[in-house]
């Protein structure tokens, strides 16, 4: 599972496709104003409040 954030849905979909191509499930956290959550120390980053890598199901619960 990998999070992404994009202001433009079409562009977000393009990147979601790339994430899938890399073997991960894409999970959108919303627009770029949410990107802080998926940067280091953000609540959805492994080195932030999340503390570990999570599965898609778990990820959908926390966003």
């Amino acid at each position: 599972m990998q999070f992404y954030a994009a202001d433009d849905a079409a562009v977000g979909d393009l990147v979601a496709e790339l994430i899938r191509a890399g073997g991960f499930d894409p999970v959108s956290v919303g627009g770029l104003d949410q990107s802080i959550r998926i940067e280091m120390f953000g609540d959805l980053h492994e080195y932030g409040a999340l503390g570990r890598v999570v599965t898609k199901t778990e990820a959908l619960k926390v966003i």
Partner: protein
Amino acid sequence: MIVPARRRLSGRRPPWTSPRRGDGGCPGCTRPSAAPDLDGWAITERLLSDLAPLADRIWLVIDDVHELGPDALRQLELLVLRVPPGLRFVLATRHDVRLGLHRLRLEGELTEIREPDLRFTLAEARELLETSGVELPEAAVVMLHERTEGWAAGLRLAALSLAGHPDPARFAAGFSGTDRTVAEYLLAEVLDRQRDEVRRLLLRTSILEGVNGELADLLTGDTGGERVLLDLEQANAFVISLDGSRSWFRYHHLFAGLLQLELRRTAPVEAAALHRTAAGWLAEHGYPVEAIRHAQAAGDWGLAAGLLADHWPGLHLDGQAATTHELLAGFPSSVRAVDAGLAAVAAADELAYGSLGAAERYLGLAERGTASAPDARRAQAQLLVGIVRLLVVRQRGDLPTVAEEVRRLQALADAPDATHYDLAPAARAALGQDLRAMALIGLGITEVWTGRFQEAERHLERGVALARRIGRPFLEFTGLAHLAAVEMFRSYARAAERGRQALELAERHGWASDPAAGTACMVLATIRTWQGRLDEAEPWVQRAERTLAADAQPATGHVICYIRGLLELARGRDADALAALRAAEPLARRLAAPHYTVPRARALPVHALVRLGETEAAEQALADLAGQDRDHGETRIATAVLRLAQDDPHAANFAAGGQDFLLAGRDQEAARKIASDLDGHAEVVSVDEAVDRADVLIIAVWPDDFKELIAQYGGRLAGKVIVDPSNPVGPVGQGGYRKVIGAQESSGQILAGLLPAGARLVKAFGTLSAPHPVRGRLAGARARGAVLRRGRRRRRRPGR
């Protein structure tokens, strides 16, 4: 005041007139001995009437005024007060005489030049030697000036002896009151003029650095010593009072040298007995250090060893390691090894000035010696061994053993059995408090090193509070320095405050080179490094390094090497960082338990090696790490750094998913190597080409490099989808990273704001499990697109 030598220096010869001892007077008379029957008063009157018409200014110099009798002094006083204004007197005397000149003093007509004014400064001493044709190195001049205490006659005598001397520097080094010229002068002018009992007092007390009446009486077997000393001081006879109440005195260095020589010459067998007597008195009156020195001078090793063993805990608790070191050096090595107490003290001394190995050997000797010590000494030796063992095991960071020693010391502190340790109740209570504070702080320090910060804080805070209450600033200082190390992980401000408090105590008491001061400096250095204030960190690291006694204190030494490595890494001086971290490793191996900086210091070389491009060496360094170090966060980060330098996870993932893409980075060779493993999915291109051809660019670089790329390519990014996996952090050690932008800011939003019109940003790929974007890395991609990555040293390589 002995001034003639200095006056001769002026080169001009004033009209001298010197009264003779016991002379009836006639100071102004030009033929004093021609008319011995003349009345002094009549002469004075006649002289006054003869001088009255004088119009010119005349200087009349009268030397040795102290030789005048009471009548002559009154006649001189009359003369001085009534002469015409053109006549000026210069009176020279060795001590104050009764001359009623106070009215002149009130009117500002009296200039008094006293001993401090007459004393030569260093510059004047140098000038005197130079004009005498003596060339000396500066160190020798300083030594001569110190020996003579600026006494002009002494300097002049030294200069006379030095002129034509084959080795003037050696002469200056050995110059003392026993030098023939000085000895003759002092014998004739000072010693031979004293009464027999005064001479005896001077000779017998010359073995002391400081003397008072009681001690003088003890050494002479006489009474009235204090009066004699006061009179000698009053007479400026090379006796100087040491305190305001004038109860302690010392002799001028040169005079003391002469007296000691005279004592050896006239009473050679008595010196040892005098030293022993002095040692007993000094020990009883609270001067243990001086007492030990005299016992050593007497050759009474048993007395000296017993005194040192008795007083060492106090010396240690007051941070007097240098004094202990010097006292120990005064014992023959055979004595040091056989006396249990002395061996324990030697073990502690090795911790300060030698090596941990030697300390452990002495401790072994002390432990064996304790078993065979006589009953009267055994309890004391056991106490010493207990304290020293705590200090020794602390250095190895051996927490279980430290805890055991602490329990023993606390048991001793809680129930000091009178038969166990022969002390008065008050002294026993004080010892109990000392031991308790020492135990708490010793335990706390070991807990800091082994990473048990909560327990460490509790023990150190109690120890510091107790040390403050019982007035043991050295323990307080040691505790504060290590509390700073604990606070460092929670509050920079509080840690810095503790560190500064510790260093203030160190400055005030002269402990700036103690290892605990090094710990406090290390904390201040670490905080500044973590804050990125690298230039400010440097002087603190240097101060910490000056205290480094790595042989004896591997735990502190390790932390200091680690912070040097971290600072150099933060500065990008990777080779220097590597050298410092490698110096830490042998120290780490000497520690019994994992020290909190050890896994960090072992992981950081991987960062340095990756940055130096030595990925194979980095791989080896990682492989060499033991299991417990491998699980540490710092090691995992180092592993991620290495993997990202060796390969590109995004690229590998795309290839595995059958996605074709371009790969770009500065290092085309490295890009080709990565691409070669990707079954033809990646095409290596230049960054320029990747920017032009790809629709989606995954730019895996640090935020600052990202900004640089945006600025460089500007409008060429229009229409592209820019994927930003960056994390706005910088490597600063201790778990690795800190956010380098505001807490509420995100790098995604900042970078999106910098993009040219038509370019759109997506935040993604920044949360992989080995996810840290490594400095110098850039990845970009698109569906049929590009991974841009930047290799080490900003070489780029592209691919498809």
